[in-house]
């Protein structure tokens, strides 16, 4: 989920920078070095090898600033290219100040309503999403949408992609019906303007499928994910990060369907691709490790799962800090693996930590809180503390009843 269409946003940005630099290079007859850097960065980004592209991005910034000065919009484009690489590598704290600097340059040069400004704001919104700062993300995206609507028109792919981003935020806030409607609108528009085989279409299908899954529409989710995976593999290769992201989601769906054998094949393949491209300490790798581990827990390999999950928890804590919802998810998975080994006290501590993080982060009626309450109730129950368990189970049920009334569903994770 983390990479997804952001890869393509990077590519769009790179194309813009490329055009600008091409003009500059031709006009000033400078050596073609930045162009080669850009080509290489584009190639590496396409397969998700951001870490390798980052040093080239730094060179690009230096080289561009040497050519045009550090207040020129072209320098801002180079900075945004580098910042996006950092962001996609999970280095959010490095990416954000760069984007702010680029934003200031653009706003000074073009005013605050300009497509370049929208691009930087969109990148900032992805950082906010990764940090689980959903209100901030939505505010940024609302600005992006307003600019793109006005400057590019409402049917432009970039405008439609903004709808996809807004829908992703709604999805994470458990506003499933709204998210689904937005994804479907965007999907129809993107198919109309780009055809059925485009990466934007594939990424939207992937997102739509995950919302279907959350709502318990498993058959619909599977159809969309298979279509999305087919397109990603055709465009980027079977072993690409883009394909791995979708393969992971299909694996998660298969786990929900009880089809563990199929899920395991997808998880292992995806883990391999992600580690190769992103390195072993990337947050997406941690997510993949956690998913594989959870599957192991279900299949009686809980002690091995525990090892994987401790590793995943460390990576996630390092990448996003100790209070992020992703840490809550890891703690939750780890608690499963530990309770499967009958260490109920330890599991209870982790479930309580997971609940505390989620309560601090989400509104009181979010399903992630319901799941945490449910798990805490379950561990107390297993420990024969029935009377203590009941209020947790009741609160969980009342949250889910409120959210899922139109579509009965369950949440296992």
């Amino acid at each position, binding site marked *: 989920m983390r990479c997804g269409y952001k890869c393509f946003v990077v590519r769009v940005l790179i194309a813009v920078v490329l055009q600008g630099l091409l003009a500059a290079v031709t006009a000033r007859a400078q050596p073609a070095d930045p162009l080669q850097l850009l080509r290489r960065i584009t190639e590496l980004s396409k397969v998700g090898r951001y870490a390798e592209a980052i040093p080239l991005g730094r060179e690009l910034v230096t080289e561009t600033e040497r050519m045009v000065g550090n207040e020129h919009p072209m320098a801002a484009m180079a900075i945004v290219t580098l910042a996006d690489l950092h962001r996609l590598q999970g280095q959010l704290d490095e990416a954000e100040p760069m984007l702010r600097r680029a934003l200031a340059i653009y706003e000074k040069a073009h005013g605050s309503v300009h497509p370049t400004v929208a691009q930087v704001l969109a990148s900032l919104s992805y950082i906010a999403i990764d940090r689980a700062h959903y209100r901030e993300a939505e505010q940024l995206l609302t600005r992006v949408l307003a600019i793109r609507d006005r400057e590019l028109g409402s049917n432009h792919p970039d405008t439609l992609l903004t709808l996809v981003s807004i829908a992703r935020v709604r999805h994470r806030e458990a506003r499933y019906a709204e998210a689904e409607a937005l994804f479907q609108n965007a999907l129809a528009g993107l198919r109309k303007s780009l055809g059925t085989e485009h990466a934007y279409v594939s990424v939207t299908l992937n997102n739509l499928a995950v919302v279907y899954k959350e709502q318990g529409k498993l058959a619909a989710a599977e159809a969309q994910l298979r279509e999305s995976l087919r397109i990603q593999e055709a465009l980027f290769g079977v072993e690409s990060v883009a394909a791995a992201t979708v393969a992971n989601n299909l694996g998660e769906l298969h786990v929900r369907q009880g089809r563990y054998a199929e899920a395991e094949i997808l998880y292992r393949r995806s883990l391999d691709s992600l580690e190769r491209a992103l390195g072993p300490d990337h947050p997406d790798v941690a997510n993949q490790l956690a998913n594989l581990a959870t599957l192991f827990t*279900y299949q009686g390999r809980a002690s091995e799962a525990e090892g994987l999950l401790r590793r995943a928890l460390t990576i996630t804590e390092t990448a996003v800090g100790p209070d992020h919802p992703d840490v809550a998810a890891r703690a939750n998975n780890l608690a499963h693996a530990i309770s499967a080994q009958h260490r109920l006290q330890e599991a209870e501590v982790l479930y309580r930590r997971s609940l505390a993080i989620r309560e601090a982060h989400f509104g009181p009626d979010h399903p992630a809180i319901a799941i945490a309450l449910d798990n805490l*109730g*379950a561990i107390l129950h297993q420990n024969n503390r029935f009377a203590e368990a009941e209020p947790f189970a009741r609160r969980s049920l009342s949250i889910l009843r409120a959210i899922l009334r139109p579509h009965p569903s369950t949440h296992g994770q």
Partner: protein
Amino acid sequence: MGNSLNNLASILDNLGRHEEAGPLLLRALIVREAVFGSAHPEVAVTLHNLASHYLDLQQWDAAFTAFKRASAIWITRRATGSVASEEGREVEIRNNADPFLGLVVAAHHAAEGSQTEAALRLRAEAFESAQWVAGMGAASAIARMSARMAAADGRLAELIRESQDLAEEVRAADRALIAAVSQPAQARNSASEQELVTKSQASSVRLKAIGDTLAEHFPEYATLAGTTPLPLNDVVKLLGGDEALVFLCPAATTPTFGR
């Protein structure tokens, strides 16, 4: 939602508030069947909880039916390869042995003091179910060993031994790989990890080839190795007039519980 309903109902059952638990369990079952279809592990867990609920209420026939549906789900999953490895399949049955045991208890009570045909059928089903609890892994291992010892054909014994060794190699390589992947980045060695993957793949290929050979040339072994419980009637036929089979079934200590 099914999860929450299921968990709350189990808690209420344990608190002795059965009249509150019943409707929640039925609702959980409906929700889970609607989302997952009728052959899903989550459905099996809810059926098990529902059956336990009926057991608490001493509604033996209802309990029997629900336990039977729950255990049928696990048996089907084992047969259809929903779980990848033989080891994983054994683990899944072992981890979910409670409905098999529950079926024995429910059948015992439902048939108590009766010699009707229906009662005999219940006892026969309980006997088969108990064999699942006793551990298919052990049963299968004994079957394989005896097949090996009985085999006049040296080639069969050879193939079986090799396939058992290969299966263990694959498992060991995978355990080593997962242990390696669990290490911090600086402690990892991609060359040795790749070696494990290559080794495991080679063993898997060979294992598959042996499986094909066995199925083709020694079909009676393949049948034996895929052991299913022996029906009561077949066992009775094997016993002499003055013989009795005493079959002890281990009791579960913890209830199956929703994830």
